């Protein structure tokens, strides 16, 4: 919320930072009297952005929420609930809960209507891929709480050098075509943005995609599927607010102590630290042997040890390349990827693992080492193509 306010001030309220060409296509930037209202809306949206998070945050979201429900859906529902509407209405100036919800979850996930250029820009302050303050905040916070230094970067310098600007020059016959403005950065902030990108890369590759952290997500999903009614999380505001980390941990302790409980086995694995072990971690060279080496190893392991003994997880960082405009001297806008070797060459963080029950892993590792090429090369995507063809024929 603090970062959101700072970014709003730098990008919008400080008029000397806003160029005429940007003001021309976003008339709201000239309505100074409305700035206090919009600043409050943006800060509230940032504060409420994560209200829909489930217990243990993202860990089990995709697997245990009902279809078509995400944590953003829940955030929207909480923000627009009667209790929250009343709170927002009593603020000075009063704030529209629906607008807060829209900006909080962003264009990708919002259930309501189309975003104007103005709304897109405000929402980008919070959820933007390159400079969203949500990302800045979670990197610094997670880094601090995980006890690692990877997530640190100079957020003060970064925020102070953000600017609204037209996109960088693009090649082609319409090089000077006008387009909607985006959030870019002054040349002086480029190193701070590189530092942010490196922090993200390291946090994903070293913390979020760490195999032991990942396998506990898997065991948590196994537990929740067997503990929650019908294996799914409730999707109403009341159900959402009634289940916190505390309820889950208490349920886990009960299940771990009762061998007849359906969630006993995963509960024990988590509480007794008997997690599955890494059988296989994907390496770049394996992609030469198979287009999907993780699935190849998983298929072999399932065949060898049975489905219950094997778990597979492929994690890939969302978002795209950090391609944003950089304003150089004489107001020249260039692509960040053309002026920063760091941003251009930074790989995309990913991690893929096959895990196995601890008592089987020594034997399996021996076999995999002996027959690695054969196992990786044995799997072919042809079966998938068969599925696709069948589905296509039905459609046609």
């Amino acid at each position, binding site marked *: 919320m603090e970062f959101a306010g700072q970014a709003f001030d730098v990008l919008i309220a400080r008029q000397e930072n806003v160029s005429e060409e940007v003001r021309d296509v976003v008339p709201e930037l000239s309505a100074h009297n409305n700035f206090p209202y919009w600043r409050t809306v943006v800060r509230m949206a940032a504060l409420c952005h994560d209200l829909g998070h489930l217990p243990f945050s993202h860990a089990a979201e995709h697997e245990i929420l009902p279809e078509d429900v995400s944590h953003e859906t829940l955030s929207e529902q909480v923000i627009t609930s009667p209790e929250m509407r009343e709170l927002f209405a009593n603020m000075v100036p009063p704030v529209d809960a629906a607008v807060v919800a829209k900006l909080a979850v962003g264009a990708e996930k919002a259930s309501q209507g189309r975003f104007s250029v103005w709304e897109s820009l405000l929402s980008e302050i919070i959820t933007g891929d390159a400079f969203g303050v949500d990302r800045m905040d979670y990197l610094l916070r997670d880094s601090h709480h995980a006890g690692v230094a990877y997530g640190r970067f100079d957020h003060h310098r970064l925020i102070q050098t953000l600017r609204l600007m037209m996109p960088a020059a693009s090649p082609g016959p319409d090089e000077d075509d006008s387009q909607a403005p985006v959030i870019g950065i002054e040349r002086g902030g480029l190193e701070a943005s590189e530092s942010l990108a490196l922090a993200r890369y390291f946090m994903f590759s070293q913390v979020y995609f760490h195999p032991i952290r990942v396998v506990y997500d898997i065991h948590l999903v196994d537990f929740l599927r067997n503990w929650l009614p019908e294996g799914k999380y409730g999707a109403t505001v009341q159900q959402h607010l009634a289940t916190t980390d505390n309820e889950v941990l208490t349920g886990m302790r009960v299940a771990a102590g009762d061998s007849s409980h359906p969630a006993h086995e995963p509960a024990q694995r988590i509480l007794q630290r008997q997690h599955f072990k890494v059988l296989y971690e994907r390496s770049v060279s394996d992609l030469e042997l198979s287009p999907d080496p993780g699935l190849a190893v998983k298929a072999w392991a399932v065949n060898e040890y049975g489905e219950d003994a094997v778990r597979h997880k492929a994690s890939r960082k969302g978002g795209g*390349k950090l391609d944003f405009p950089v304003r150089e001297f004489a107001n020249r806008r260039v692509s960040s990827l053309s002026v920063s070797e760091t941003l251009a060459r930074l790989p995309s963080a990913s991690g893929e693992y096959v895990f196995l029950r601890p008592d089987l892993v020594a034997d399996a590792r021996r076999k995999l080492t002996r027959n690695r090429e054969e196992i990786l090369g044995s799997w072919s995507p042809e079966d998938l193509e068969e599925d696709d063809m069948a589905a296509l024929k039905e459609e046609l």
Partner: protein
Amino acid sequence: MKRLARAAVLSALADGLHERNSWTGETHLQKATFFLQEALGVPFEYDFILYKHGPFSFALRDELNSLEADRFIEVKPQRYPYGPRLETTHIGKALQAKFPRTMEMHRAAVDQVADFVRDRGVGELERLGTALLLIKENPNAHDEKLAELMTGIKPHVSLPEALTAVGEVRSFMSERHGAAV
């Protein structure tokens, strides 16, 4: 369509754009995929929304990032001051060869879209993509109405530019015979 089959078609689309002198940046691939899915019916199942620079799919953005992580495509920095191009790697080419029937099924559609996109810039693709989206959303609206809608949503687009874009998309859609639908 499953992930690897999508990867094969997307990398073939990048190849097709390259062959026709497209810059083949992420925006070009986004708009070309939108046309492939929405005008020619290739079943990627991406959700496109009208975003700042025309139709945009966050899922496709994430997928392109995954394809890079899986070494099917690579991002090639270009000369100052321009953004990078996306190119298919030898692993991506090998993947295409593993999906012969999928590639055959969608080859004509990929070629038609690549011909249409060719060397157009991102500003023009924004207008064309927006025109297609508005045509799909308002099937009974006449061209002038669609152009007005576009300028209302995108104040930086002029009315003549919007009308031209709507006309070009209508013409593309009427000439699409032969592509897989």
